[in-house]
């Protein structure tokens, strides 16, 4: 279920550049990369105790990180989005949400990002030397794979 955007605004009040909007996706709080740890900490205090999903999207100009938080007590979900530039660094939030441990490694690896403050900042899925696969500038190797089917 979707919370009222005003509640989320109240929870993360004081963060620079924070915007809360209601979109087809759900209630989305957009914060800057520097604020993301703070925003998530604030939301955890507000009752969003579980990080259910974390992923990135290559928009063509930057990589947009999406955190999906859920409060089981309130039965609400909120999305937090933060932009990060190519080759940038994400601050790990495993202190607040241990469930981010592996998804953070995966996202960093597949988008060519760096991890800060992560207890085990290794690659998760691929071996060393594999290109950041989910970036739009990395093409799938063979023609057969790309063929329009």
């Amino acid at each position, binding site marked *: 279920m979707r919370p009222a955007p005003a509640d989320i605004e109240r929870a993360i009040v004081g963060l620079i550049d924070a915007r809360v909007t209601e979109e*087809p996706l759900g209630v989305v709080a957009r914060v800057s990369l520097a604020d993301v740890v703070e925003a998530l900490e604030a939301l955890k205090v507000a009752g969003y105790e*579980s990080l259910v*999903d974390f992923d990135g999207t290559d928009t063509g100009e930057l990589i947009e990180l999406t955190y999906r938080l859920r409060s089981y007590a309130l039965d609400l979900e909120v999305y937090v989005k933060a932009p990060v530039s190519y080759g940038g660094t994400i601050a790990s939030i495993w*202190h607040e949400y*241990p469930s981010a441990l*592996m998804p953070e490694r995966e996202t960093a690896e597949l988008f060519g990002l760096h991890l800060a403050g992560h*207890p085990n900042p290794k*690659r998760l899925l691929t071996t060393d030397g594999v290109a950041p696969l989910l970036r739009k500038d990395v093409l*799938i190797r063979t023609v057969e794979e790309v063929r329009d089917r």
Partner: protein
Amino acid sequence: MSDQCEETLGVGLLCEGQHDPGTPPAGLRRAPSGVDGLSTEHLIINMGPQHPSTHGVLRMIIEVDGEEVIASEVSVGYLHRGIEKLAEHRRYDAVGTLMDRGDYVSGIMGELAFALAAEQLMEVDVPRKAHWLRSLTSELNRLASHLVWYGTFGLDTGAMGQFLYAMREREALCDILEAITGQRMMFNYVRPGGVVADLPVGVEEKIRAFLATFPTYLGEYDQLLGGNEIFQARVKGIGVIDRDMALAFGLTGANLRAAGVDFDVRKARPYAAYPELDFEVPLGTVGDAWDRYTVRMGEMAQSARMIGQLIDGMPEGDHIAKVSKIIRPAAGEVYASVESSRGETGVHLVSDGTEHPYRMHYRGPSLYAVQALEELLPGHLLGDVVMLIGSTDVMLGEIDR
């Protein structure tokens, strides 16, 4: 580099970054060897990816003191196929085949998650019958998947008897699913807009024949494994994932409900025909391996109950809405999740209005279960390791994607 890096378990280096790493989670913490000046060494053993009971290609690096696990690290990625990248190069109706290969034991649920996400963007009116067929195949598939879990969980504890009995029932389910979808595992049945085919003639009788015997068999199976005192001594009180830990590690599905959290996507965020069905959500109390066992066994009974309702109340009508051959949904970003056999399977779909998804993220619930294992294993005995992997029911296909 090596000055700032402290060696963690196995192959990892724990490096001091800009951000203070703090205390690492229990699984990655190395305990000092030696007791009272007596020099002892811990054994670091590599379990998998070829170990017989790591449910596919899970690899664990375990540090043991005798038989007791001191630290553990989970290493995944041996089954990485790049499903998310491949989906960016497929048309919307072809992504289903990829989703099947995520959680390959319950493929329908993966397809359904993607179809639900795509439908949100397409704004298509899915016929009622399609909803019912989706629920029917989902529940059949959930039963098949849980039976695989039941059989292999017994194998993990060393019991052989129940495995092929579970396979016998699963065989019947696979036959039914084959009759409906044309495939036994990789269905590609649920498409954006509906399902591929209507129920064929004669399958209803097959399902009824299955339902006539299944509840009795389920009771027998529960007696065979859960009624065994050795099994109970093995699983009761072991691998406790309490509510706080379950939420912190993002667990969903039976692993979460075993900790007493009443959250089932089918109830909390109803989709397909679930709002119209009468079913209960089994809950555990303490969240140990026994609770996870009873919750899954209860889910099987509920699935069988739902299949009966779905067969009885199957509506008439079309099984798929009118969708164009090449689907071009509106640009936008949506998230859809379903209750799969292992928890909440989510699809985060970004569309740019072309015939290919711009970005498809597939949330596999097992990824979250498997990282909870890192935290869970220390303090348990080596014999419990495989049992705990079995009790969390991880599926490597959806971890590595």
